[in-house]
């Protein structure tokens, strides 16, 4: 019924994680960095559900972890965007390499 091998789901998750990591490392705008983090969290969710499906479908541990990951990702996005808006109000910039008040 379902003959895509599990490693293909893992490949998809790995490449999606790499794309998200590239976005986190390379973008200047803090909101773009946040988008990269969301992509990385989604790739982890794909991994959880792939193993939940192929390894032990009846245990439901994978879907429960996906629920937790989605919840924490939503909380993280809300707080991070609040911080970005607060930073923009103070410095008129959302570039992560210009806001270096803690460093200097």
């Amino acid at each position, binding site marked *: 019924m*379902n003959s895509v091998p599990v*490693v293909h789901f893992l490949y998809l998750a790995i490449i999606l*994680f790499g*794309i998200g990591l590239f976005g986190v490392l390379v973008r200047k705008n803090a909101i773009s960095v946040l988008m*990269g983090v969301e992509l990385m969290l*989604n790739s982890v969710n794909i991994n959880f559900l792939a193993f939940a499906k192929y390894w032990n*479908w009846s245990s439901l541990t994978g879907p429960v972890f996906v629920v937790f990951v989605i919840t924490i*990702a939503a*909380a993280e996005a809300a707080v991070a965007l609040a911080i970005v808006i607060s930073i923009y109000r103070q410095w*008129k910039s959302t570039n992560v390499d210009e806001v270096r008040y803690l460093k200097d």
Partner: protein
Amino acid sequence: MTNALFYIIAGIVLGSALLAVTLRNLFHCALFLALAMFGVSGIFLYLGSEFLAAVQVLIYVGAVTILIIFGIMLTRDVMNDHTRVMNNQVFLALITALVIIFMSIAAVNKSSFPLTDHPSAVAALSADTAQAANTRTADVYALGPELIRPERGFAFAFEFVSILLLSALVGAIVVARKDPS
């Protein structure tokens, strides 16, 4: 047929994710992020988790992407046409991402996963999933009691996540509001 569907959805996810991290216009980035999230929810459907696919659409496409678009609009005039969208570490970041991708793929290729290594296991798997499908699936009727069943130990984490979500809500309001002084 259904296999081809998986590869089409995977291609959409990867392509729109790549566009979401490389495009100039932040608004287009957010829209491609929404498309990637839709694709991931399609992958969830393919993996048989209808409830989580619906949750993915509701929360990521419906809430997180809209929140990001609001954030882009509230910080609007930072990106004009002549600013660079990427910092000067593009080459290093590309190497890091590619090394992590290829090392992880090599590790996956070297590992053996008990249920899916040989065809007999695949046959047993499909019989097992068919048998499991009419007993318990990851639908909402099974997932809800699983979260709060005492012997599974998720109840504390469930309550903790509820408190985390509430405090994130309050914290976001406190951080983002205008300073009264």
